[in-house]
């Protein structure tokens, strides 16, 4: 009994309730005409699609920069990588490889600048991150219209007046990662092994990073900045490194999402990923200054599970579309809860 209590306390009551809820939805699904294998497929695919974006939250949380509401900076770097790769008409692994490369470079540069900014505003990182993210989205909206892209698949209109809102990558690198070693379980359930393996690879890289001397120092900075200073650590430098890492991961995550989705969404699309990513890592048990890979995996799975299953089951059950609203209420509710917990 004591062991069960301890497990509950460690795992968190909220998470257990949501876990059971998810299980209940899966069990109830067939009764409402929702196929279990389709549901599984959706949940697994969406898990793989958004996992890396949630993972990108970890470095900045660990270094004490708070929840990365400014993740659009990284996501847009990924978008830039994608459209540049399209511009050179590259397909398959080359296509996605160039997208990664360009995205990473841009993310590194922007992450560096973003990190410098956050160092000047210690204590107010989160609200400023939010507004930096928003501002950057609209700045880039202007860029998407005036930068000289030529590929007819990407641009709109005959004269090429700026990029389209949604660009199809069906001819280029759709499912390039997902299809690696994919497992066809049934007509409705295809496991995108490649994408999942790539996610695991990213998790391993982050896990490994935090086992190095540098990663250890960053963890200390987030855990107790005074302690870190007394150990001779350059706090500002550690924070910039963590911001760069988060931004680069977000860029990679965006491209992985795009290859699975089949489309590159431009303009305001990054805004839709901000709160869900933050909420997912919080749901997994992270706090404002401490996050682990386990938090990412559990949180993404539960979050995407709820987001997928609740609409499909409940919609079928009571014939009403509640998906969007559930998403809003759950994501934001989780974040408010985390913000009101006593910190360190």
């Amino acid at each position, binding site marked *: 009994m004591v062991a069960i209590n301890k497990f509950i306390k460690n795992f968190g009551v909220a998470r257990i309730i949501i876990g059971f809820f998810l299980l209940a939805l899966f069990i109830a699904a067939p009764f409402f005409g929702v196929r279990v294998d389709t549901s599984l497929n959706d949940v697994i695919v969406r898990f793989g699609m958004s996992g890396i974006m949630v993972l990108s939250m970890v470095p900045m949380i660990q270094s004490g920069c708070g929840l990365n509401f400014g993740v659009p900076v990284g996501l847009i770097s990924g978008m830039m990588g994608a459209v540049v790769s399209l511009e050179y008409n590259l397909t398959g692994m080359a296509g996605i490889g160039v997208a990664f490369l360009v995205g990473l470079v841009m993310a590194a540069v922007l992450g560096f600048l973003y990190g410098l900014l956050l160092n000047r505003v210690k204590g107010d990182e989160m609200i400023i991150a939010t507004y930096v993210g928003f501002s950057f989205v609209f700045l880039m909206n202007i860029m998407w219209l005036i930068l000289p892209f030529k590929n007819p698949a990407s641009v709109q209109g005959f004269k090429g007046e700026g990029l389209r809102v949604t660009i199809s990558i069906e001819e280029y690198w759709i499912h390039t990662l997902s299809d690696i070693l994919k497992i066809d379980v049934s007509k409705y359930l295809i496991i995108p092994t490649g994408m999942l393996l790539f996610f695991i690879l990213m998790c391993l890289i982050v896990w490994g990073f935090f*086992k190095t001397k540098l990663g*250890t120092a960053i963890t200390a900075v987030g855990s107790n900045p*005074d302690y870190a200073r*007394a150990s001779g650590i350059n706090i500002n430098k550690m924070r910039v490194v963590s911001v760069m890492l988060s931004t680069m991961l977000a860029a990679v995550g965006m491209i992985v999402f795009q290859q699975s989705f089949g489309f590159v969404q431009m303009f305001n699309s990054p805004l839709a990923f901000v709160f869900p990513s933050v909420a997912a890592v919080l749901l997994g048990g992270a706090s404002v200054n401490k996050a682990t890979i386990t938090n990412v995996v559990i949180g993404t799975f539960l979050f995407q599970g709820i987001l997928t299953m609740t609409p499909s089951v409940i919609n079928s059950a009571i014939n009403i579309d509640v998906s969007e609203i559930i998403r809003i209420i759950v994501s934001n509710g989780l974040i408010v809860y985390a913000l009101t917990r006593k910190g360190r």
Partner: protein
Amino acid sequence: MNLLSTDNVLLKVEGVGKEYDGNRVLKDISFTLEKGKILGLVGENGAGKSTLMNILFGMKVIAETGGYEGAVYLNGEKIKFKSPVDALKAGIGMVHQEFSLIPGFTVGENVLLNMEKTKKSLISKVLGKRVETIDLPEIRKSAKKAIDTLGVQLDTDTLVSEMPVGHKQFIEIAREIDRSQVKLIVLDEPTAVLTESEAEILLKSMRLLADIGISIVFISHRLHEITAICDTIVVLRDGLVVKETPSEGVDVRQIAEWMVGRDVDAEAKHIRPLVKIDEKDIIFETRNLWVDMPGETIKNVSLKVRRGEILGIGGLAGQGKLGVPNGIMGLFVSGGEIFFEGKPLQLNNTLNALQSGIAFVSEDRRGVGLLLDEPIDWNIAFNAMQVQNKFLKSYLGGAIKWRDEKAMKACALEYIKSLEIRCTSERQLARNLSGGNQQKVCLAKAFAMNPKLLFVSEPTRGIDVGAKKLVLDSLRKYNEENNTTIVIISSELEELRSISDRIAIVCEGKIFGILPPNSPVVDFGLLMAGEFKINEEGEKTWLR
């Protein structure tokens, strides 16, 4: 019911005692204070002054930790304060050492903070008292009156942020006396931040207040101020009243003696046996060091530390002794010069100091010394890992430095054994250890770096007797076995005398003297009170 012999007595403290978790802090405290008189309260750190004031002022922490024994009578009535608000209502005001002022408000607004004079309006009759209009002219008048009573000139419309520090004290006192029923004011080290001339003005104001019937409890370490202005003197030591006397004929030396004096027997046991130290072998030196550590500023310290010695640094709280190690280690802005092993060392550079072979155990265990949410082995190994690249496995020619958790575990187990750290395992979170064991972890962290010079700040503060002994013994042992030079900073004079080869006393940001531990205790007291300075040749210069 006691019938008091005279009804001139305002405050009567009878048999007051207080215990915190088995730790007795006050025992059988009794004294009286008459109306319109000034009582000087003197004592070292830890003597019990703050606890006594907390009881007097009804601070919640007293009730939360089991209340107090004995009784306090105000005007013959026993007090039952449940919070500071009750104390205020009864007419007791307290001016703390840290300023309780709002810099963005004017002098007038601060004096009447939350006691503003208001005018009723139509709306307030409906919506209640809180929307009455603030009556600025009345506030100005009331504030001016209070300030005039103190005999100083302050413009009530100036913003506090633009006032010099010396004036701020008066604003705080004005706030207390503005209350119509004020009978007693407690002043806690009010002259600590004042210059000599400003302090004189303050003392004059105190006399003015006493003359109109307000009693004052004056806490100060500046003993000559106590003899100058107080009518009665009460000296606390180790939680007991060692002396209650009218100030007539009492001189500074006597007070110092009462303040730090100990039983002769106890004296003999506690002195460190003399060790041979080479006076000329200087491992560390500071010249004109200044440190900006808020609350513990250092103005000018020139000190030579001999290799292999244990140097103690003592002094009263707030006088600057904690600023010495914190400044040297670069945790607070400092200036001047420091030298390590004959070579100049850069100030304001923590990493450099650590890499040179100097380690520091901070007085702020939980805030600076530990990562509370990480396990013991992390805490012990961290500095050594970051500064000296220990506990790391190198790959790819040094490009990747991987945490060697096996080595960390081994190291932690070693220290757990040698320092007797009581824990469930080396993976237990630091947060869950007792104070004494947390301190041992902090020590282990420093030892793990094999430093040549170790600064330890308040090593036994707030830990139990058993752990205290172990901490001091391990420091002694480390010094003997490795010839590590140790500088130990402590508020407890006894502790310093039992472990140090020499003891320096810091007062008002400077070193007032360095004495061997077996010097007469009263000399330490006088140094702490800043009454005289002792130079390198042992000559005394009386300052006041």
